[in-house]
């Protein structure tokens, strides 16, 4: 066991993947000499060389498109997209190539590409630096989408993503990069929990609160705050956004009868829509109230001074819990 920041845990996971498999190469803008703008790849170029940790020209389609070619040759490229809002120039290569080539080649060509994306807000950044584009990828067949919320998961999941023969979008909660946690850096990957499985991080009986990434900690805090008021919240960290581990969520909702989903991305067609619809399908008879979504507004990410009025926080989560429980809340008395 060792204590690492979430960012440090990813760095350690990358290092281990590079060491274990010489077909693993890291590619991206500024990831080599600089170690990335968040220093997630710090030291790796020095350790593994410029052919394993590759500073690329400034072009996202170029990075992902050449990663496809490398995958064709048997490499396992790990691509860094510098910020969430810069992934769109590479969208075509992700959606039309990375996601589809295993299928389009009838399973003969593997696309074991990991696309790392620091995502989400809360760091007071400029426009395009705080986005939550995960739903675009979760809507895309052929991709896997995961997000970690703490150092321990980050360390294991990045290695699992790289080891997966499927392409994985790996969303890193950038405002948690500096948060420390215990990491078991000796454990074998084989024993680790698969990245497709959700975690129940706090058990509870009254409401199921589902989230992922940076909001997991806030959900924990909400559970603590609610406990003081006698409300018992079960917090689930999804970890995998595609496929969703709906079994774990449904098990919980069958016990609690109430579901709140929180994410930073906009509400319309955010992950909350899929979870609400799927859980309603699976648990209709168990639901005591409609699933509640606590999300970013359906707006372009606002200027830094306004982000607290956009991001779901503890108060908004608790307001959602109150709605799910039918307790007085911000929408009390409003026509649905």
């Amino acid at each position, binding site marked *: 066991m060792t204590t690492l920041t979430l960012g440090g845990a990813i760095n350690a996971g990358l290092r281990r993947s590079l060491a274990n498999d010489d077909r693993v*190469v890291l590619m991206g803008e500024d990831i080599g000499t600089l170690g990335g703008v968040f220093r997630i790849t710090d030291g790796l170029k020095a350790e593994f060389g410029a052919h394993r940790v590759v500073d690329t*020209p400034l072009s996202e389609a170029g990075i992902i*498109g*050449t990663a*496809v070619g490398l995958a064709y040759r048997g490499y396992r*490229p790990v691509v860094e997209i510098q910020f969430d809002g810069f992934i769109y120039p590479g969208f075509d290569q992700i959606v039309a*190539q990375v996601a589809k080539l*295993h299928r389009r*080649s009838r399973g003969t060509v593997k696309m074991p590409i990991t696309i790392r994306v620091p995502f989400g807000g809360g760091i007071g950044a400029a426009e395009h630096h705080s986005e939550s584009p995960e739903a675009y990828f979760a809507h895309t067949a052929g991709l896997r989408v995961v997000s970690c919320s703490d150092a321990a998961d980050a360390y294991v999941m990045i290695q699992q993503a790289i080891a997966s023969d499927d392409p994985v979008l790996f969303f890193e909660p950038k405002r948690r990069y500096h948060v420390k946690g215990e990491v078991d850096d000796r454990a074998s990957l084989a024993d680790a929990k698969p990245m497709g499985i959700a975690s129940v991080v706090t058990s509870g009986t009254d409401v199921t609160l589902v989230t992922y990434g940076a909001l997991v900690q806030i959900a924990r805090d909400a559970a603590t705050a609610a406990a003081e008021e006698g409300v018992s919240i079960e917090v689930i960290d999804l970890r995998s956004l595609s496929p969703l581990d709906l079994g774990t969520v449904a098990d919980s909702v069958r016990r609690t009868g109430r579901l709140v989903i929180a994410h930073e991305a906009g509400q319309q067609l955010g992950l909350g829509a899929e979870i609400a619809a799927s859980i309603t399908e699976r648990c209709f008879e168990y639901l005591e109230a409609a699933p509640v979504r606590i999300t970013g507004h359906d707006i372009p990410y606002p200027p830094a001074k306004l982000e607290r009025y956009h991001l779901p926080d503890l108060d908004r989560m608790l307001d959602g819990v109150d709605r799910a429980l039918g307790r007085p809340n911000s929408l009390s008395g409003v026509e649905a």
Partner: protein
Amino acid sequence: MTPSDRIATGLLTRPDGFAQLITPEGERRADPDLDRWVVDIDTEALRGLYRDMSVLRRIDSEGIALQRQGEVGLWPPLLGQEAAQVGSARALRSDDFVFGSYREHGVAWVRGIDPADVLRVWRGAASSGWNPYDYGMAVPQIIIGAQSLHATGWAMGAKWDGSDAAAVAYFGDGATSEGDVNEALVFAASFEAPVVFFCQNNGWAISEPVGLQSKQPLAQRADGFGVPGIRVDGNDVLAVLAATRVALDRARRGGGPTFIEAVTYRMGPHTTADDPKRYRTDDELADWRARDPISRVGALLAASGLDLETLEREVEVEAARAAGELRASIATMADPEPMTVFDHVYAEPHSHLDRQREQYARYLAQFDDGASGATEGGAR
């Protein structure tokens, strides 16, 4: 500057605008730069290229016929581009890797791919026709230009692996306007990747003339990226072969990428769904017929004393057999099983799709005779 570098940049400045070894009339033209790259192409080898092109042309027209008869959904003919495809593909080694577009049936054929496997996809009977690793050729690419980056990435990998194999990206004149192709030039130049960008400038991108994409020869585009551009008569199989050998030689010796603009012409429609009469003249077509890639090789062979009629008869037999085999293959192309819609979406188990597959199987099983009941409204 190495000799190949000189060739690469020198060709553009020739008065006729491109390198040519066989004139449209079938005369062998001397070329101080290119000749030495094709000294091995004797009459026998030239006969082989003639045969390649002729058989291909016949296979291609069979593809059109099968489309007209409803056996195939769509067919993008290569008519007129036989020299560009055969000449370039014959320069390759088996460990080189081709990333083509949707029109490279000729390249596929040279790589040893059964035309039936090409057709299968256009028939809509499979998402892919062959295993890329069996032939050193990727699955076809419809997203214009995307494959140029794949070829570049593959070439970067080949270089890192210490191999002297090269990648070839095939694309059209229209494709040069897509960001991907330009980014591929950036990456290839930056990493000195052993990749050949083989642009078949066939004059048109569907209805758009090449002049809409660029006001100057496309080979010059590459020079701007630091990738030497060669402009070659794309209807001259010998010149194309030589130019591709030049480019591959550079690549293998660590010289990095080369861009070849093969000036050719799409003599047929864009695809069987297209009507070129709406946008181009018969005169233009007639012009290009006079520059046919096959007949000039025939004329050269005849001039060298070969009995062209005999050759034509031989080739005709072979072409007819190939076309017949292609046609016959249709009978063996059973429609895929309904449940295969779920295949190969993921390489590893996937909880969501596995469940969806199960539910759909249950849905289909409701109908009396399984799958076939699921017609529009038919089952109720």
